[in-house]
């Protein structure tokens, strides 16, 4: 039985004044695990994040007119093993938002579809362990015309994103370390307003969305039925502007967040192909984002199209 399930975490990341990180991470594969050929892992993930404090620029504050802002996501996701070294992934979440105080109405809807290609070009023994390198590329596209310019209660930022990620993994016995770096290109978005103010008045309904860079470190235990890991993620928006004193947030704010979390995946021994995951995370530092606490839980199942009925015997620990 393998651990090659979409193994993630919605994630250890800030509910960035709503969901930017969820966009970046919940839908991407950030682990060093591949599906075997002709195996299709599908599953559902529920995640919830909430924050009471947020950073207005660099100033940490609360807002009595928002109370606690929370979001929930119900993600449908899957991974298909084209070959042992090439996987395709998708994720499509339905999201809801809510503020516990104040008068603003929450939002809900289908968010962004993300598609990923994950390639394992290099895997070799190194010392007593195994070193592997992955190149991952992805695109995420809004699936509905949801409103982006309604922060902190919009369900997403509505940009079309292209991501490139380099991921390196080293496993020694049952212990592993994974590091990755991601660059996210974000397309400009169109909002309903015909003008807005950033650090200057912009008389346009187009918004320049700065790109984003993230780095992630994962350390933990990985065996055939159990994965337990600690995760640290750092996200930086490469541009953007700070929320002004007592202003509302805006999609092109400079949203930065550093978060830590844990993630556990257990693959059942009794039911072949079935696994359960769960995790939690907390934002320890940020800028123009909420200080989010989040948790997630999911169920995944592997469908085997090899016809033999055997489930991925080669799901070696990667």
């Amino acid at each position, binding site marked *: 039985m393998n651990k090659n399930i979409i193994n993630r975490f919605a994630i250890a990341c800030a509910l960035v004044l709503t969901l930017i990180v969820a966009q970046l991470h919940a839908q991407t594969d950030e682990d060093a695990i591949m599906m075997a050929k002709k195996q299709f892992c599908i599953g559902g993930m529920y995640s919830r994040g909430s924050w009471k404090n947020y950073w207005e620029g660099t100033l940490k504050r609360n807002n009595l007119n928002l109370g606690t802002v929370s979001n929930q996501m119900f993600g449908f996701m899957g991974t298909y093993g084209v070959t042992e070294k090439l996987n395709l992934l998708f994720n499509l979440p339905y999201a809801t938002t809510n503020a516990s105080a104040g008068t603003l109405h929450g939002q809900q809807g289908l968010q962004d579809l993300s598609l990923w290609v994950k390639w394992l070009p290099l895997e070799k023994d190194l010392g007593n362990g195994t070193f592997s390198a992955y190149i991952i590329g992805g695109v995420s596209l809004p699936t509905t015309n949801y409103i982006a310019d*309604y922060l902190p209660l919009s369900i997403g930022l509505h940009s079309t994103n292209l991501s490139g990620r380099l991921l390196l993994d080293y496993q020694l016995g049952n212990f592993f370390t994974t590091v990755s770096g991601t660059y996210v290109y974000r397309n400009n978005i169109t909002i309903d307003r*015909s003008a807005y103010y950033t650090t200057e008045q912009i008389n346009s309904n187009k918004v320049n969305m700065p790109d984003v860079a993230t780095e992630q470190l994962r350390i933990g235990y990985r065996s055939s039925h159990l994965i337990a890991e600690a995760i640290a993620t750092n996200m930086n928006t490469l541009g953007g502007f700070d929320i002004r004193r007592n202003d509302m947030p805006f999609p092109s704010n400079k949203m930065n967040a550093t978060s830590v979390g844990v993630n556990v995946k257990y693959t059942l021994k009794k039911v072949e192909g079935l696994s359960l995951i769960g995790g939690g995370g907390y934002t320890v530092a940020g800028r123009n984002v909420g200080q989010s606490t989040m948790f997630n839980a999911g169920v995944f199942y592997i469908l085997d199209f090899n016809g033999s009925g055997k489930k991925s015997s080669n799901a070696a620990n990667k």
Partner: protein
Amino acid sequence: MKNIFLSLALLVLTASVILVACSKKVEGVTDNTAALNPTNIDLAAGNWKTVLLTRPDTFLVAAPAATNSPAYVAELNEIKGAQQSLTDGQRAAIKYWSAGSVLRWNEILRGLVAKHNLPPYQNEDGSYPIPSSANPFNYPQFPFSNPPYAARAYAYISAAQYDALVAAWHYKAQYNRPAPYKVDSSVNALVPKTALPSYPSEDAVLAGTMVAMMSMLFPTEIAYIQQKVTEEEYSRIWSGANVRSDIVAGEALGRQVASVFIARGKVDNVGKAVGTPAQWKQFVTDALANGKTPWYSLEAPARNPMLPFFGNVKPFLFDSATVVALRPGPPPAENSDEMKQETAQAKNYITNAPRENMRIVQFWADGVGTYTPPGHWNAIAASDFITQNYSEVRWARNMALLNMALMDAAIVCWNTKYYYFTPRPTQVDPNIKTLTGIPNFPSYISGHASFSGAAATILGHILPANAAEYTAMAQQASDSRLLSGIHFLIDCSTGLQVGQSVGSYAVKRAQADGAE
């Protein structure tokens, strides 16, 4: 199979590179507006009816030096010298300002309003600090340019610029000094040539008016505006449109005319518009004494009402007695079937609101951090005026008419709001969660509807071909407040009518100001 997917990966990579290479710079709608080239220079505008000036020559503009004088020749040489080595930055300044000075100052003002339209953060004790014009740089900076404040700022600057240009046109016709490129053919005209006399410079008049008005309206922005003034004035010299003495005389005239408006601004009652805690309490006491539910702030902590005595500010288009006469009758009683129905209607609109409703709400919201509804109508007017190739003085006149209507609509609206002091839908039914922020003042009548009714009425008069479109826009702006749960239907429909009545005073003025 494997090859296909590898190709796919490569494709994604290539697409990424292409997209990343593309510029993400966002262009403003007027960044590339062509240089203004008026179809009619309105040479007789010196006779148009001014707003506050009693005569177009109240302020003397001395006769300019003759164009064959050594002083003038030296000024021509300044232009020629500058034109020999214009930098890209200088050319960009010429291009920017040539689109029209009234347009550019209006855009800059909209930016200032948006920048300063932020409600102050509360004190430790839950009260709110009030911006002080005496200490404008202290937090919260002065001003908080909320909608009524903004309406007044747009009106004062637009009206002052209009009066100043009427005076300028008076002297242009009187002195009839030709533009530098007409006097000396070796001066290049880097803006469209015009038959309009160049003394005093209309650009400098507008710049001088603007910077002088900052002392009253946006005192923290004087330095910023002074930079823009310098840029505009030099751009006119570099472009060959004006000599230095055109500029000097123009800026001085603009500043003098502004002083008349600043003097009015000191006594127009805006200084008393904030009120005192005792006065705020009195609204509540009075409502309760009349057996009515008083409005209360839905913010936490409860914020003092926004400019409750703005309704006593002196209007431009009519007298204060007319403000009272224009104030509509009361809304239906709060426990009437009609109001119950309207509350249910508001609730209904915010429940599962369609995306198109959200779009309408956001498009017209013009809330915190924006140029406000009056600014939105300025933007709408400006984009249509650009297509008309007006002279600067006609641009200024039309903007003044629009903005006086908007300010006076704010006055009548605010007068009504605090006269009736009625609750918002969400106060009546806390289950009404709104689709945009609830403004911190009473419900009846809608500010958006009042502004929009007034703006659509005067703009429809100025550009009759667009009248139906403006009416539809005003209706939608008014509806947006109902769709968002911010207002009852009666607030919107009555506000629209009141706005139209105010707008009709601007139309009356337009018909009699000598420009039509």
